[in-house]
């Protein structure tokens, strides 16, 4: 992993559960946002700071002025009308907001939008085009790997990463590395089947 990646909170619920230390990785970004802000808000006064960012989302450059506190998830959903990434908790607990940042699965609710500058963000909307589904999307359809579908964008983004990370070697490994994505409809066995099918197609 390059140094660039150190700026991202590439941790899942599982790594959070394994050790509290990962949680600390979130903190330094606040400092970066502050330093870039033009605003003169005092420590005690109203704290709105706007910041100009240029993001690369699904291969498109998006220049925006955003609240420094905005998460990548909220910017996707509120500013860019990219509502495929879902908010299930806003706390890094459910995985519904999973996107790829420079190819790594990332919880967009735990990522400040400002942190994403200089990276390539891919969301479910950018994974494929309509006529040419990604093998993982096709596998989810064919294996009925969802019911309500609300966790599905996150599951699919995690599923792709699970394979590219090399964590889809066995059923048990897939289950383990897909456990950061909760599915309340409990489509888990079908999700495992879908990841296996896509693994074959993706050559993973």
């Amino acid at each position, binding site marked *: 992993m390059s140094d660039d990646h150190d700026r991202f909170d590439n941790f899942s619920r599982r790594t959070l559960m394994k050790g509290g230390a990962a949680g600390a990785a979130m903190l330094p970004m606040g400092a970066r946002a502050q330093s870039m802000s033009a605003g003169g808000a005092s420590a005690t006064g109203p704290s709105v700071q706007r910041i100009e960012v240029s993001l690369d989302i699904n291969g498109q450059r998006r220049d925006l002025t955003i609240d420094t*506190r905005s998460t990548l998830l909220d910017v996707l959903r509120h500013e860019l009308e990219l509502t495929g*990434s879902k908010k299930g908790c806003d706390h890094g*607990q459910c995985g519904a907001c999973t996107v790829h940042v420079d190819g790594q699965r990332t919880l967009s609710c735990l990522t400040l939008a400002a942190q994403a500058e200089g990276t390539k963000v891919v969301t479910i909307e950018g994974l494929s085009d309509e006529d040419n589904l990604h093998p993982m999307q096709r596998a989810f359809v064919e294996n009925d*790997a969802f*019911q*309500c579908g609300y966790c599905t964008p996150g599951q699919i983004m995690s599923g792709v990463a699970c394979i590219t990370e090399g964590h889809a070697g066995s059923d048990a490994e897939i289950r*383990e590395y897909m456990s950061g994505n909760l599915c309340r*409809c*409990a489509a*888990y066995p079908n999700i495992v089947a879908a990841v296996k099918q896509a693994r074959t197609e993706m050559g993973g």
Partner: protein
Amino acid sequence: MAQDYTPVPASKDNMGKPVARYEALQKVTGAKIYAEDLPVPGRPAYAWMVTSGIAKGRITAIDDTEARAIPGVQLIVTHENVGQLGKLETFANGGLAITEVGPLAGPEVHHDGQPVALIVADTFEAAREASYKLAISYAEESPTATFGDAGATEKALGDINPEYEPIRFNDAEAALANSAHTIDAEYRTPIQHHNPIELFSTTAYWEGGRLVLHEPSQYVWGLKHSAADLMQVDADNVRVKSPFVGGAFGSKGAVTHRTALAALAAKRLGRPVKLVAMRDQGFTHSGHRQETRQSVRLGCDANGRLTGYDHRSWEFTARTTPYYNGGLDKCAAMYAFDAVRTDEYVVQGDRNVPTFMRSPAEVPTIYALEAAMNELAAEAGIDPVEFRKINDTRVNPVNGAPYTSRSLNQCLDAVADSFGWTGRDPRPGSMREGDWLIGWGCSMAMYPTQMGPSTARLIVRRNGSALIEVAAHDVGTGCYTIAAQAAGERLGIDPQRIEVRMGDSRLPPGPISGGSISTASVTSAVANACDRIVEELGLSSDASTDERAAAMAGMSEPEIEVLGRWTPPGMGEDALQAMYDGGVRITGGNMDERTMFAFGAEMVEVRVNERTREIRVPRIHGAFAAGHIMNPRTAHSQYLGGLIWGIGSALHEATEIDHKRARYTNDNIAEYLIPVNADIGEVNIVMVPERDDEINVLGVKGIGELANVGTPAAITDAIWHATGTRIRDLPVRLEKLL
């Protein structure tokens, strides 16, 4: 023993085709199909609900100076400036409100997490920050949290509902006294929360005098009428859009405070307002499965024939609104009891109001009955599968009403075969592998077959396509898919050429998505619409699908349109009108003349680590029979979800409460444990063909709430079989086995 897993099973006798979900492509591409994702006219404002920090008392002062100073804050609504909202009735009184207490009704606080203010700002971030700055002072009183806490008040159900009658069928006391074997046990079930992954949201905007709501809903027509009553406008001037729901499980049926708050804010600001209850707020916002106590006495004779059954239940509910599930009449219908006595109670405290949660009455009560069945079978030295077969019944013993169909024995055989049950050594502690103690357990699953009125508009076109419109709901169940299948099968149209529109109150009304009634009710209305089309085409009702298709191709008009209607037999026509008025009418289960249930049987293997007491479920099998299966693919997924919910109920799920402050302490989905992928091993589902020509037009039984009933009894019995320890307090976590 591991079996090849088939996510999408093939059809068997009396099953439709396992066609892919109507909306599958949209769900894998992140399309805007959920209420919160729908576009709104103009830039919305963002609202944040401020919730009470105490469980009981009153607000003495609100200082919003600092909150108002946050740049971007546009509006703060509290009980002081909310104005006059309309009043809604609760379920018990024929309405849909979750609580008797209206939104921001006054300074009184009735439970922790009660909404006490709404802050609306230009951005989500500003609204959230302002919520931290809103200073609310309270005069706090000591609240009652749950069973056993000071101030809890008990009432018999008859004191709340004058129509409720406890069961007194023969003399249960005498029957128990004359039994060869008896069990007398108390079972406890915890608070659970639905926690759909989609949060509870409402987006509201006004177009002149018309209100548009985007809200995930299990009943858009009901929500339309409720919102109209709250905002004191004509129901025709309210539109609710909820094309797909991101999981509900009962939590999106009642009308909560946020609907009126969002609508009010949108009106005052003259712009769209988005309000999302955050995950922790969801724990107090939209109900839960209440904790219960179940006291069961059960007896059998020396041959294993059941004699007396005495079941008493206590449900913990809200002081303001004594919502309850009841349901012991269903337990009483399950086996050939000689005598039954039931008594049901509620206990009230200072809590938010419970609501339906997937198989609301059945999960706690059938768990208790099935656990007692397993314990009694062991006591009598009879295999638990055999014990259930000995006590099978063709009628509800209490009133003699025959089952329209009942395939419990076939399900027991099918699951025993798939699981390999005959290899079970009945002695506890008899199976192990290394450090792992192995246990096997079983249970019955059941759910009443229920139905409600529905309509369905059907348009068929000369070009071979069709359109179905009904304000029914898809909460992940496959409702769009099966509606298209129902019409396609009857008219000889490829379901792929049938467009389906649901989840919009502008469409003709469909039933609430609750009580597992949607499939039976909606397909019956679609079938009625198809019959009307056949009539319009001048065909006889026994015309073949080929003849029907040919007649459509030769129509003189480009399209014809009909409105199908269906009311379950025995329900008056006023039930249809009630649905048009946003009411809820459901029938089924235990009736005077007939008894209507779907059945299943489940078997689990549990492994308990001898040293750490860690509990795993490496495999679970279920066999289910539920009349005509519209679509084996979506049915399989519902059974799968149900079985895994059953595992969660048995081993993981419980909302913990602080007894002193009556506050939920694990109100997030990291600490409220639900099964994750790594918790689930082998799952095998057998669909047992069953035909029921009596039950409704297509012979369909609802299945969404079937598979999670009974599972905890199978798992607790397996834990006993592994360890010799009986745990009667759910969930069973390792500390209970230390």
